[in-house]
Structures are given as C-alpha cells and as structure tokens.
C-alpha cells in the first residue's frame, strides 16, 4: 500500500519539485543504501536530513512528491508564477508513469513537501519521511558530504515539494493521495518504498527529466530554500526533532501492532500479519511479495534487530520501523525498547526516530539495494506516511500566512483557519464571517448528489476581527431604510447589476428588476459601475451594516437598550462551595465592563439581580434607596416579576445600592439549609422581567443542581449509562420534558438570551437544562465539582469574557441565495419558527450557524452562486441594525473543480454538527455509520471521477480532503459518538450543544487537539513550538508537552524529564513531587517557566472559553484522560487509530467502487 500525502500549498511545492527530481535521481543512484545508514548514524540531526533526502527522496520523493498534493495545490490556489510551468510539466509525467510512482512515492512525497514547508515544521517533517525532509536543511552540511551536491540538496528539498505537486497532478487531477492496493502495487508505507522502487525508477527518471527542466526555475526559487534550510537547522536540532520522532515511532509501532488485530475487525482484515498473506491483497500494506513473505516473521526479526543500538538500527531502518509498526504485532515490548533507547540516547533517539521512518520508507531501499536484510516487510501503514494534519497546517501557514487574503475574486478558497492571515474585503465577506465547505458548487443537483459533498456555509455573523481589519461600516439610509430587491427582498450588495443608466437594478439573486429609489440614484460610469461605487460600502464590500428603520423593529417601536440579569443559585451547595461569594465579589467590578457600543462612555445596558433556591428573591436596587430591598416570590408555579421600577438599573446610578446588595447576599444566605432548587421559574422570572421592561436581554444563571423542587420544569434524575449503545441512547440527549422547549420559544419571542453557568456535583441533566440556553443563542459553561481553589480562575475568566463580549439581541438571520440553491438546513444555537428565519434571542461574537444548501434548480458556471446572509439585531446600545454578509462562489460542471475547492475543516464542522444532531433521533451507531458512509462516498466519487486511473488497491485522496479521514475519525471517536466510561451523560450533552455552535477553528482544534512540545519551545521568541501529531508515539519521556482542544489544556510531563526543567516549570525538585492538583502553573522567574506560561496565556486568549489546565504525569492515572485526546491512537472506548481507520475507509471506498 502506498499512501500519498499531498502537501497543501502550492508554492512550496513548486520549489520542491525541482529538488525532488534532482534528488530522486541522485538518491536512486546509490544513496539509498549507504546513505540511509550513514545518515542516520552519522549525524543524527544532520544525518537525518541528509539521509532522508538522499534516501527517501530517491524512492520516496519522486513518487511521493507526485502523488502529493503539490500539484493540485498549485493548480488551485497557488497561482504563483511557478505553478504554471510546473503544472504543465508535472501533469505530463504523472499521467505517463506517474501513477505507480505516485502511489509509491506518495507517502514520501507528502513528507517531503512537509519538510520543506516545515523548515519550521521539523517536527512535522519528522514523521517518517518528513523528518528527513526537514533535516535536509540541517543536513546541508551533510549533504555535501554525503552524496548530493549542496545545490542538489537544497534543491532537493525544494524539489521534493514541487515534484510532489507535479506528481500529484499526474496521478490525480487534483490531488492524489493514494494508498496503493496491496496486491498490485506496494501498498502502504512499506509498499511505498518497495512498490515504488520498481516503478519508481522509471518514474523518477521521467520526473527527473521534468524535474530537471523545472529545476532551473526552481533553483531560482531554491534561493528561498536556503533560508529555509537555515531555519531548518535550528529546527533540526538533533534533540528535538529526533526525539519526538523516535518516541512517537516506537509507540506507534506498538499501537500499530495492536490495532491490526482490532482493526481487523473494523475493516482491513488484512492487518494482522498472520493473515498477512490474504490480507496483503486487501490491504495496501504488503506491497511487495517480499513483504508477504517476510511479513510477520520478518517483522519480528526486525524488532529484535531494532532493539539493538542505533547502529543496528541504521541497518534495519527500513525494516524495523516498518516491521515494528505493522509487522511485529507480537511484542509491544519491543517497540518500547527501541523507543526508550532512543530517548535515552537523546540525540540518538532523534536519529533513530528518523531512521525508522526511513526504514519505513525505505523498504524500497532494501529492495534497491536488494538488501534482503531489511526483510522487515513493511506491512502496515506507516503512521508517518499517511496524511498529517500538522503538515497540512504548517504548509498552509507558511504558504498563505504572509499575504493578505483579498476577497475580490469569486470562489476563492481562503487559507486554513489555523493560518494567521489578514483579510481585505473587496466585495466578499471575510472567511472569518463565512466559510464554505466548497467554493465551487456543482451546477446541478445530480452532480451534488453524486459527489455527496455537503454544500454548507459556516456563518459567524458577529465574528470578532483582528484589530488590523476594519469592522463593517454602518450605512444609514435614513427613514427609507436599506434598498432591497422588490421580489426576494435581498439587500443592496456589490453584485446587484445597475441597468438603464442606473435607474434600475437587477437583483443578483432572483433577477427581478427594481427601480432605484430617487434618493439612491447615481449615474453609471462607462463600465456600468455606479460612480459612487467606492463611496458606498454596500456596493463595494462584502460585509457592512445598515441602520434599521422602525419597520424592522418589534411592535414598530425602536427597542430599548438591553438588560443583563444575574440570577444566582443560593442553595446550600452554592453557598458551601463559596461560589456565591465569589460571584458577588466578581460582579462588583465586572459590572463596570458591560459591553459598550463604539465610543459610548458608559454602557446602556441595565442590570438586575435575582437569587434563588426553592423560591426566587428579586432585588430592588433603585438608586434612591438607602438599602436594597429583597422581594421573595414563592409562587414558582406561576412566575411573575414582583417589581418594575428598581429591578433593572443603570450601574453607575445605583452603584452603592448594588455594592451593598452584593455584600449582603453571601451573608444573608450563609446559614441556608435549603438544598432544593428550581430552574424553569428562574428563566421565567428573567423573561417576565424583560417583558415588563420591554427590552431584550441576557440572563446569567448560576446553577448548581438538578431542579427537583416542586415547580414547573421540575426534573427527575434519569441518568442511565446502561442506555449507551442502545436504541434509547438518544433519550439521553433529548430534554426530559417539552416544557423547556416552550419556554425557549417564549424567550426567543422576547429576545431573552440565557447563559448558563453550571456547577454540578452530580447529574443535573444538561440535556434538559440547556434547551433554553441552546435555543436562545446562549452559552453553557460547566464546572463539574467546582472547587474554589482550582476552578475559580477558569470560571471568573469565562464569566468576564461572557459578560464583556460583543453581543446582539433579538436577532433574526436569513440567508438568501442565487436561484438554483436554497438554504435547507441550519445547525447552531437558535430557534426557528419557520423554515427560513433563524431566530436568536442573543447572538454573541462566538456563535456560529452552519447552513446547508441544496439545489432546487440549476446554477450556471457564468454567474456563479451568491450567498447573502442578513442579520437583523439589536446592538448592545439598543440600536436596531442589519448586518449583511455577501459571498460569491464559483459553479462547476466538472466534479474535479468541486474537489479542488473544498475545505476539509469546514466540512468536518458541518459533518460533526450534522452527526451531533443525528444522535437526537437515531442510535449513535447509525449516525456513525452514516458518517463513514458519506465520507466513503465522497472519496469514492473522487476516485471514480477525478483521479487518474490507478490500481483499485490504491487509496487516492483529493488534495483538499486528504485529512478528511483523520478528522472524521476524530469526530467518530468524540465523546458524543463514542463515549468512554469516564464520560458522563451530562458531559456528552454539554459537548453536543457546545459543538453545535462552534466555528471552524474551534471544531478543528476540538477534534484534533493541538499538541505542542514545550521543551522545544524557543524561549527567546514569542512563537509557539511546532505542533506534533496526536499520538503517543510522538511523545518522548524526556519532554513536556502541552495539549489543548479548546476546553482543556493538558501539560504532560514525561517520567524522564530533566529535573532542571521540572524545577523551572513547577518549582519542585523531582517528577514525583509534581502535584497534579495544580490548576495553574506556578509563577517562576526563569525563561522556561515564562515561556510556557506565555504559551498557555496565548492559547487561552485564542479560545472563547478559558481552558482548564490539567497537569498529567506520565504513567499517572490521569494519563488515561490525556490519552483520550491523542486522537491518532486507538482509543480506550474503542475508537480506531488513524491508521486503522484509514484502512477501513479505503475498504469502504473500494467496496463502493467495485
């Protein structure tokens, strides 16, 4: 089997190509064998690069490069100068001989590109082949020494990147990640190496030719490489890259073994080495006959061999890794051993790490060399050879992070969410507001159905922009209000066509012609543009706001400024934990930071206070009072607001009374013995208060327990884990009673948004309590087993942020589209009373709505497809506004165009939300199967219609979707769809609701957490260390890692971490003294501590919620929890490892194809 990884970015590829080609040749020549061992051993770091380059390049690169995305990328996005040439060249080769090589090479190629990109990526590169790649830079010195000329080296690096691109093109139209079929070509990792070899040579030849041609141009480009090299050097620092790699590998190997058996069940029965023979065919894995032969047995030997010192390693390289990974299912011990050694050696480890990689890749080399020695038949997929999210992210970051993203062009795919980029609005909404699953929509529904690619947009209407970008302009058309199409009511936007000298305009959505109102008339210039085009945001920008007229207001009355009501549970639990005191203290200062509009001096928002247990206490805090007054409402069956005047007050006016109240609340209830609480009446109370005040607003409810007191909305404990995996599991996600649904409806009607802060010590039925929050566009925050010492910071930060963040009220959103498609489905935290309008009582800057579109007619390639998202809302100062986002997309008649313009992150966002909604109505298993099936169909369709013909055994992934399998696997393994035993019902409901309103960036990190090696952080720069893949194999015992997923931050400490580091970070002298009860890192005055803390702070700022910091010591019991987030590994709850899943997907695809 071969897995071709395609690098995302185009430009980088371009460069690599030349390198590649060049490399390949040289590499093939003789480097392979000698190079490999040498490099590995020689200089770990250096060698590595050198090694890889030479070796892998030869076999790998060529092939790899081709399959890799490089080509597609270049085609699509990278229109850079380089591309054209390459493309041409590239394409040619691939078609001809590429396929095989591609397949074989694919793996390496992927790596290669990474490595290149990654100068910085060292780590990323590290993965098997990549590691070598990276090294190159570092290795430069080596290279010269080794075989290739320095130039070649540099070029090689670059080349790699490029070649892949070209190759890819060749192999696939778009991108071709392919995993070779077992029988035919050399399957996976091993196969890569092996399979390719045979085929490769020719390929390489061809490539080289092309490459050479390309070369020259590249050389020019090579220029950059050097720089990259230099970068690479630091990166390459032996210890870091090496270690991680090695460690990872070892573990992976182990997992690899384990998986096979299990995985066998899953899909790819081929895995088990024993069955090796039969499987090979199914699995792309055993590429070569040799494998089959050597397969299991060999692997073992490999292992044996691997344990030995590095030196031995070098030899076995190819074998060990491969075998280790797949082949040697037997002794997990083996792998670890090597791993350890590696680690121990430190630098060695690194080396070794790469070695295994090489080995994996190399299997080919052995072939070349005819070395039977590396008998290790590469059976399994080499984890390093399969598409790496890290690599993709890094590539995109380096390729697209530097230039602003200008939105003027239709159907442009924006950079990944993980990339920092600047947006310039030139007529289309920023991707911060809208992201689509595809920027090129099939013209017909048949095509759409065939591809199964969901057409969806993830919309975050009030997204926060970085300070460098300008907020949407506010357009005031006076009393007449915004200009709109007469028929479809679309708002004036840049795509409206003015005709008849500007007297009329034709709607870009429905084609209806509307008179231009006299006051809006303007002459057209010779191009048909209005003369005032650039003066009017609504004619020139993708996003802008209109000031709404009274017609857009409820009851035809301009709204009053909204209100915030704080509703605090004062039952025994809340009092005992100190929560109430904490809240009251915090509110005293927090109230000065209520959201303000623009440059207003003080917030227009009024505040009110309620406490409750079994009854509700309202407070009159009118400024004229000397003391606040408490009003108890015990008639919870029929809630009402006992006072009008004095309940909602201006903070500044009533400051002293409020302060007095907040001082007294903790005292008043200090002796309470009331344990029962109500819940629905609390919301009702807030709702009634807002009704009485005739304004919209937000309730902040701080709640501790299941509401069992006699009252409407009373709940019973229905938690039952036995329901998991039964048909009734869905009931755990459904509310107990429809009462809350009705309540939510009322809340939405009033514009009453409910934010819920939960502090449960036991089950409190988030699924039910959250209904109102969810449907009103609110947020839920959950602090299980709240303890003042550990959770205080997190809670207060969340509270501060929640109170301060920008929010709109009483919002209605409608998405209009060109004739031909239609918004049909919506996901997110909102309420819908009809099929088109998304109603949200409150909408803050973090809330996202995912909208799915379906065809109801044909689209045309010429006119493309337009989206207009109009959000009518009340600002925090009570101003009624319309925010408009426009986005134009391309339309295609070729499926290839569709696949070339997809955005996997967005796709995953949609799929996750779709699946998470599915669990409400279907058994989880059905949902999971449906997900897998849909993705298989997407990929199968690609394979069938877009990929160049290749062996059925090859897994070919579109460049843009090469991460789909790994991400999808993460979704499938998530707590909602496959809960582990430690996941509570409440957690699942909580996460389900949380994910439903996440944006793409959040889902991305949530499903594929970010894992940063802290010990590799550069204490002198403010950049983050390069992320590594989420697998235990990648962890080194001697390092400290940080993992974050948007909700939690784990700091994982290896058992062998130097004491100095421990001392620096935790202020204790030894590993055993580290307390995992810490919720923050101690503030210590040393560079490492500062760096780590600044990293943590940086991450906290990036996320909408303050993440919980958890210290995990290796081999500690908490590690189980941590491992849960190593999503590329097999999970305890039965989730497949990445490799296994990929195989499974492949199998599914093949079934669909056959």
């Amino acid at each position, binding site marked *: 089997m071969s897995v071709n990884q395609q690098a995302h970015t185009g430009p980088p590829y371009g460069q690599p190509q030349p390198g590649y080609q060049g490399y390949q040749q040289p590499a093939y020549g003789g480097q392979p064998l000698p190079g490999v061992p040498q490099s590995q051993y020689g200089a770990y770091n250096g060698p590595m690069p050198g090694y890889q380059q030479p070796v892998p390049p030869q076999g790998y690169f060529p092939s790899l490069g081709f399959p890799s995305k490089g080509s597609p990328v270049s085609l699509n996005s990278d229109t850079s100068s380089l591309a054209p040439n390459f493309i041409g060249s590239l394409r040619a080769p691939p078609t001809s001989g590429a396929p095989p090589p591609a397949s074989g090479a694919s793996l390496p190629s992927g790596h290669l590109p990474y490595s290149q990109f990654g100068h910085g990526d060292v780590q990323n590169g590290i993965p098997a082949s990549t590691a070598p790649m990276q090294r190159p830079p570092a290795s430069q010195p080596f290279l010269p020494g080794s075989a290739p000329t320095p130039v070649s080296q540099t070029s090689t690096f670059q080349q790699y990147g490029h070649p892949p691109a070209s190759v890819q093109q060749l192999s696939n139209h778009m991108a071709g990640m392919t995993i070779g079929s077992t029988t035919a070509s050399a399957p996976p990792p091993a196969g890569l190496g092996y399979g390719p070899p045979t085929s490769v040579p020719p390929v390489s030849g061809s490539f080289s030719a092309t490459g050479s041609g390309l070369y020259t141009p590249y050389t020019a480009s090579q220029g950059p490489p050097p720089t990259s090299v230099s970068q690479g050097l630091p990166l390459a620092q032996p210890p870091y890259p090496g270690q991680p790699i090695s460690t990872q590998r070892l573990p992976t190997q182990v997992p690899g073994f384990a998986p096979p058996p299990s995985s066998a069940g899953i899909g790819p029965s081929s895995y088990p080495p024993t069955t090796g023979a039969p499987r090979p065919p199914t699995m792309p894995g055993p590429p070569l006959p040799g494998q089959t032969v050597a397969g299991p047995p060999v692997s073992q030997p490999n292992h044996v061999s691997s344990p030995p010192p590095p030196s031995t390693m070098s030899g076995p390289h190819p074998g060990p890794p491969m075998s280790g990974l797949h082949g040697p299912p037997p002794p997990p011990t083996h792998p670890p051993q090597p791993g350890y050694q590696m680690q121990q050696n430190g630098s060695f480890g690194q080396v070794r790490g790469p070695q295994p990689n090489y080995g994996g890749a190399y299997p080919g080399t052995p072939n070349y060399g005819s070395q039977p020695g590396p008998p290790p038949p590469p059976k399994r997929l080499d984890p390093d050879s399969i598409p790496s999210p890290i690599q993709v992210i890094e590539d995109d970051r380096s390729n697209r992070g530097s230039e602003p993203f200008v939105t003027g062009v239709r159907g442009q795919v924006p950079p990944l969410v993980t990339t920092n980029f600047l947006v310039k609005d030139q007529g289309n909404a920023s991707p911060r507001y809208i992201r689509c699953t595809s920027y090129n929509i099939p013209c017909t529904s048949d095509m759409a159905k065939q591809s199964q690619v969901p057409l969806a947009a993830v919309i975050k209407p009030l997204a926060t922009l970085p300070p460098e970008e300008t907020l949407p302009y506010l357009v005031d058309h006076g009393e007449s209000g915004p200009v709109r199409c007469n028929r479809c009511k679309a708002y004036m936007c840049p795509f409206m066509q003015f005709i008849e000298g500007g007297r009329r305009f034709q709607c870009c959505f429905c084609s209806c012609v509307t008179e231009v109102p006299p006051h809006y008339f303007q002459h057209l210039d010779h191009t048909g543009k209005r003369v005032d085009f650039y003066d009017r945001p609504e004619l020139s920008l993708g996003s802008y706001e209109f000031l709404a007229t009274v017609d857009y207001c409820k009851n035809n009355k301009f709204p009053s400024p909204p209100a915030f009501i704080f509703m605090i549970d004062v039952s025994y639990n809340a009092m005992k934990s100190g929560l109430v005191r904490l809240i009251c203290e915090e509110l005293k200062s927090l109230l000065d930071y209520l959201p303000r509009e623009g440059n207003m001096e003080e917030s227009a928002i009024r505040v009110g206070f309620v406490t409750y247990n079994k009854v509700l206490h309202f407070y009159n805090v009118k400024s004229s009072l000397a003391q606040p007054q408490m*009003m108890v409402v*015990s*008639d919870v069956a029929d809630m*009402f607001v006992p006072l*009008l005047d004095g309940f909602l007050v201006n903070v500044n006016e009533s400051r002293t009374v409020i302060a007095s109240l907040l001082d007294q609340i903790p005292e008043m209830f200090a002796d309470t013995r009331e344990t029962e609480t109500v819940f629905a009446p609390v919301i009702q109370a807030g709702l009634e208060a807002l009704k009485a005040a005739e304004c919209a607003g937000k309730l902040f409810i701080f709640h501790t327990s299941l509401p069992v007191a006699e009252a409407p909305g009373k709940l019973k404990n229905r938690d039952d884990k036995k329901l998991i995996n039964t048909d009734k599991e869905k009931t755990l996600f459904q509310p107990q009673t429809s009462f809350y649904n009705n309540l939510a409806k009322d809340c939405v009607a009033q514009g009453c948004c409910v934010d819920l802060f939960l502090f449960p010590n036991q089950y409190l039925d988030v699924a039910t309590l959250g209904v109102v929050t969810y449907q009103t566009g609110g947020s839920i925050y959950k602090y299980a087993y709240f303890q003042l010492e550990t959770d205080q910071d997190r809670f207060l930060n969340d509270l501060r942020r929640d109170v301060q963040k920008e929010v709109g009220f009483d919002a209605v959103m409608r998405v209009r589209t060109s004739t031909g498609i239609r918004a049909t489905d919506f996901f997110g935290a909102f309420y819908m009373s009809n099929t088109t309008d998304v109603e949200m009582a409150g909408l803050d800057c973090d809330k996202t709505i995912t909208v799915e579109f379906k065809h109801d007619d044909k689209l045309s390639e010429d006119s493309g497809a337009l989206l207009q998202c109009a959000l009518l809302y009340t600002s925090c100062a009570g101003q009624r506004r319309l925010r408009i986002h426009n986005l134009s997309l391309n339309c295609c008649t070729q499926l290839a165009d569709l696949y070339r313009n997809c955005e996997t992150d967005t796709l995953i966002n949609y799929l996750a939300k779709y699946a998470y909604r599915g669990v409400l109505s279907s058994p989880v298993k059905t949902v999971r199967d449906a997900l897998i099936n849909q993705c298989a169909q997407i990929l199968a369709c690609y394979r069938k219609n877009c990929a160049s013909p290749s062996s059925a055994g090859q897994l070919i992934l579109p460049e843009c979707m090469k991460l789909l399998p790994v991400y999808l696997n993460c979704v499938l393994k998530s707590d909602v769809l496959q809960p582990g035993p430690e996941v509570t019902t409440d957690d699942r409901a909580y996460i389900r609701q949380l994910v439903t309103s996440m944006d793409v960036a959040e889902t991305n990190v949530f499903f594929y957490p970010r894992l940063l090696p802290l010990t590799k952080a550069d204490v002198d720069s403010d950049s983050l260390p390069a992320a590594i893949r989420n697998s235990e194999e990648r962890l080194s015992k001697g390092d400290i890692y940080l993992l974050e997923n948007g909700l939690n931050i784990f700091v994982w400490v290896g058992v062998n971490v130097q004491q100095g580091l421990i001392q620096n970070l935790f202020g204790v002298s030894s590993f055993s003294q580290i307390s995992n009860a810490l919720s923050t890192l101690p503030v210590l005055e040393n560079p490492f501590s500062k760096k780590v803390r600044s990293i943590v702070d940086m991450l906290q700022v990036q996320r909408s919620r303050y993440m919980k910091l958890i210290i995990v010591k290796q081999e500690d019991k908490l590690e189980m929890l941590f491992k849960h987030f190593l999503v590329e590994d097999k999970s305890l709850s039965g989730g497949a490892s990445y490799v296994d899943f990929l195989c499974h997907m492949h199998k599914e695809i093949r079934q669909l194809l056959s």
Partner: protein
Amino acid sequence: MATYLEFIQQNEERDGVRFSWNVWPSSRLEATRMVVPLACLLTPLKERLDLPPVQYEPVLCSRPTCKAVLNPLCQVDYRAKLWACNFCFQRNQFPPAYAGISEVNQPAELMPQFSTIEYIVQRGPQTPLIFLYVVDTCLEEEDLQALKESLQMSLSLLPADALVGLITFGRMVQVHELSCEGISKSYVFRGTKDLTAKQIQDMLGLSKPAVPIQQGRPLQTPEQPVISSRFLQPVHKIDMNLTDLLGELQRDPWPVTQGNRPLRSTGVALSIAVGLLEGTFPNTGARIMLFTGGPPTQGPGMVVGDELKTPIRSWHDIEKDNARFMKKATKHYETLANRTAANGHCIDIYACALDQTGLLEMKCCANLTGGHMVMGDSFNTSLFKQTFQRVFNKGFNGEFRMAFGASLDVKTSRELKIAGAIGPCVSLNVKGPCVSENELGIGGTSQWKICSLDPSTTLAIYFEVVNQHNAPIPQGGRGAVQFVTQYQHSSTQKRIRVTTIARNWADAQSQLQHIEAAFDQEAAAVLMARLGVYRAESEEGPDVLRWLDRQLIRLCQKFGQYNKDDPNSFRLSESFSLYPQFMFHLRRSPFLQVFNNSPDESSYYRHHFARQDLTQSLIMIQPILYAYSFHGPPEPVLLDSSSILPDRILLMDTFFQIVIYLGETIAQWQKAGYQDMPEYENFKHLLQAPLDDAQEILQTRFPMPRYIHTEHGGSQARFLLSKVNPSQTHNNLYAWGQESGAPILTDDVSLQVFMDHLKKLAVSSAS
C-alpha cells in the same frame, strides 16, 4: 308608665339589654298576634363602671345540654349546698370552693344586682393581640403620604407587646418580613391568583417551622415561635424598622395607562392576610386592617375592570343584573370572611376614595367578623385620620375598647326558643333544645361567634314563644334568658360575661294592657328595622317596604283605639305613639332606600346599622335636629321642613353626618360680619354654640361623621333637606309661600300623608 320607662332604662344600663316586649305574651299564638316579635337588643360588653370582674370560674349547670351559669334567679338550698338551674331545673351541687356559702355569705353571682357579671378565667396561653395592616399602594401621592403617617402614628397607639405585620398591595401583593435588618425583605404574590391557605403558608415558609427558608440573622429568641416572628413582630421591637419601612413605601410602581384604573389586588391581599394568620395564630385575637383607596381591579375579588370607560356597578346595574363581577367577588370575600370568622380574626375595611371601592362585595368581611368599616373620601381627611385613631381609643379604665374572638351563648327557659340574631356575628351552628325552627336573622343556633366587638356592639336577638295556647303558664311565672359571652379582653385575658334576665309572662287576652304598656317602641323600631335591613340585603327593596308597612298596619290594628272605618277615631297609646313615625323615617332611610346611594354607601350604612346600640340606631333611623336661635336655648325640633326657619341655626345629626345649617337671615348676618363686631357678641356665641355641640358629637362617635357646615341655599344643604319630613313641598299649596319653613322639592310623601294613609288602612275593615 313612667315606671316602665325607668325599668327599661335601668335594665339597659345594668344588663345592656332592651326587649321589644317587657311583659311576654304567654302563648305562641298570642305572641304572633303581637306583630312585633319578642326580641331584644343586646350589648354584650356594655361598659359598666360599677362592674368589677370576679377572678374565678363560673359555676355551670351540670346538665350537658344546658350548662347554664349560676345566677341570681336560681333557687339555692344553702343547707344542702345545692342550686337548681332555672332553665332546665337540674339540681346541682355547689363546687367545693363554695362550701362556705350561706344566705348572708353569697357569692356575687347570686346577688340580684349582679344579673350581669363578668368572670376572668385562666384558659390557654395568652397571646398578644395581632394587628396586620393590609395597605393599598395604588393611591395618589398625597393620600399615600397621609395614610403612611396615620399608620406610623398608630404604632404608638398599639399595645407595646402587640404583634404587628404589614402587607402592601397594588398589582402585586407584598408580605413584608419584619425581622430582618439591612435588606428589607418581602414576599411577593401575584395579584391575580388565588391561593389556598396551605399554599400561602408554604410559600411564606410557614409550614416548616424547623427549616425557615432564610433567616436574616439568628435574631429569633428560642421562646419566640420562629415562624411568626418573620412577619409579625412585637411593636416595641420593630417600631423603628416598621416606621422606616412605612416611610419608604412607594406608590405602586406599575404603570397605569391613560384611561385605566390601577391594578389593585385587594382580593388576593386579603386572602393572603387571612391565610397568614390562619396558619400562624388561629383562634387568637387579631385584626386585619385593610386600607384601600379604590376598587379591586384584578384577580379574585375584582369588582370592576381596569378600564375607566366601564364604570363600577351601580344599583341600576345590579337591578338589571348587569354587574358582571359582583357575584364572583362577593363569593370570594364571603369565603374569606367565613374563614376569618372561623379563625376568630376580624377584618377592618378603611376605604377612602371618591368613587366606590367595592364595599358592597367586601362588606361581609367586616360584617361577619365584627370588623370596622370606614368610608371616606380620602386618607388625607380628618374623617379617616380621627376615625382610625379612635379604633385604638381606650376606655375609662385605660383599656382598649376592643375585644376579640367572642362567642355568645344564649339560653332560654322552656317557653322560649331562639329564632336568630342579627349583628356582626356568625353562627356557630350549635343546635339545642332552645333553638327554634323558624329563623329570624342568623338562626338555627344558640351560639354565635363575634370575632371582634367593642362596648357598643349590639346584637338583635329574636325569640319565639313556643308555649301552646292551651298550656297556660302559671300566674306570676317568669321567663328567663341567659347570655353568656366568652371573649378575649384587650388585655388578652379570657373573660366571660354572663347576663341573666327574666320577664313576666302575661296572658294577652286578659292582660293586654300590661303587655301594651310594657312595649318598648324604641327597641321595637330598631329590632324591626334590623329585620327589615336584613331582609333588604337579600330581597328587593319594595318587598321589604311592603312588609314593613304591613307589619305597621297590623300593629296599629292590634293596638290602636279606633272605630271601624273611621280614620279620625284612630288613636295609639303613648307607648306606641312614636313607632309609626320611626317607621316613616325608616322607610325613607338609606338603609332601605337605595335611590341616591351607591351600593357601597348602602352597604356602609347597613353595616353600621346592624351593630350600633339602640340610641345610635335611632339616630340613624330618625336623625336628631336641634335649633339654635335668639328665641331661647337650643332645643330639639321636629325633623320637619317646617323647622327650617331663616333665623335659626340647625344642627342635624344623622349619625353619619353632622350638618350645621344657617338659616337665611343668619347666613346674611354672618356674611355681613356681625359676629366680628363686639356689640354683636351674642351673635358670635350663637354661631359658636352649634359648632361646640357638633364637636362634642364628633369627638365621641365612631366612625367619625362627615361634618358639613352649610347655609340656606348652599349646595350641601341637601343633606338636611333630604332628611326632614317634607311637610311643605311644591305640591302642597297651602304651605307654598308661607313664612315658616322651607319647601322641599320632592315627590316623597310627608309624614302627615303617611299617617293619614296608615289610619285609613288600620281602621279599614277590609284588611
């Protein structure tokens, strides 16, 4: 005859009892022929300067169905230490404490002068009096301010250990917790939802005394019941707090849109007040004092909608069955009143508004519980302020003139049965051998509960002679009645007042003149009036008038001296002579006439009529008119238009109003300012004299009357003109233009015409 008058007066002073007949017809048949029933007006707590209470338990007849109290009418065998019950003839042993009894060493209850005696008994724990203020906040700022001041002032008038509570209401109902410092707390209820007592207690956290929902501070002393202390606190403790709290009371903050009445939840507020006391202090003396400034406009007990365009119901609406809320509201308040009465609490209503406030619907709250009902134009008037202050007046002995939770037990000798009672009481449904099957007023029982009473509270009690005609009572036999009133004295002592009276039987055929001479026409008029008013509450006005007329005619037929069909020969003996005149004025009184009165006013008048003593009742029936002039000392004059002369100042007391009316000449003199000239000082004195007299009345009366000072031709003169007998009207020519008197513009018949008709009918053989 003078002797009877004296006898009657003496009896009244001693026992607080006035019978319509002081010699009783000895058979049922004869009694019914007497027309006016055998009945009495009883003032249970009549103030007696010379009645020191005795400090021991009364001695009771041992027969379980009798339990009469030992009294001077009992026959006593001093040697055997036995006494015979004069009601059931049971012979009873004296209790051991009476061992030393003898003819010369009699206990007080055997002495004839102690036919009324009061015992102080020790029963149960003494609980302090409770005053629960229920205050409407939907008032004009001025009114509210005045009310707040009155309430604050009242705190100083309450007994120091009395418990006091505060409920305010408007759109919502707030029960204020008085125990806390710092934040003032109140429990709030929605004004539209009726709650059961249980719910109210649950919501107030009264049902689980062990776990108070919240306590402000550990203030509660252990001996104080925790529950009560939150809402009801001793005055001396929270005097300051409550004063502040009252001071901070704001007008109901809920907006009232143009053209609407404020939403006022009187019904729920009362319900909560009742529920609160019901749960915490059943069967102890408590006053719920409702201060309201308008009609209930929402929730149970609402009387009128909140739209001003729909006026509150009038008599006209009621007759047309057009008062859509009335029945429901009345039912609500009746239920409340009955619950309150069952708990022994009382409800006062202080309604001050220019328009009606729903007294018609709420009247039962005061009527059934013995509470006060006060109606004024505004809380900012002396009428309200002084009246309210007078609630807390103290008697001559320094005790509050109020008593609580009384039960009145009436026992009769065998020839008599009890037909019923009319007054501020509810039936206790105690059936016994002496309870008649025929009901007059609240019947079917021999015991009534009077939740609140004062020294002037007077009940009318109606009897029935059951002795058959053919079973004559032995000559010289006497019938006896015993009234046993147990009550909680304002000092929180439990007391029992026992009044035992006896009257002679007489054979109506042979001794009619005795019976006739012993007729108490004043008492009879009031008793008949109470019956009439009682009927008027449930029957159509005209029917009641017809019934009254028929009774009067029958009485005249029975006791008049006349020749058949010769009206001119008709004469009534002195003891009956005033009776027709009373009936004449009664017919014209606001108790029976609703014309010109709102339903609220009628309810108000009737309320007071049903509880005042005989003197006051007579004033209500026939107002008193005094004339002041240079011709002589002030003198009572006929309540007749002929009494209105230019050179007179008239002072009329209708109980509810005090009218000073300056005759035409006097008024001109006053305008000319003669009173300011030293040489006309006598004129100044003349002007002053009625004012002084009026003041005297104003000072003593409860509720304080409306004080009207007017003159000839003044608009307010209508108060006088509507009361006087219209002997001269624009219709009777001979009086037109004459010097004396003032013509009244009315179609009402005058007394003369009335009497003429009466005579005619009385002598007519047809009827």
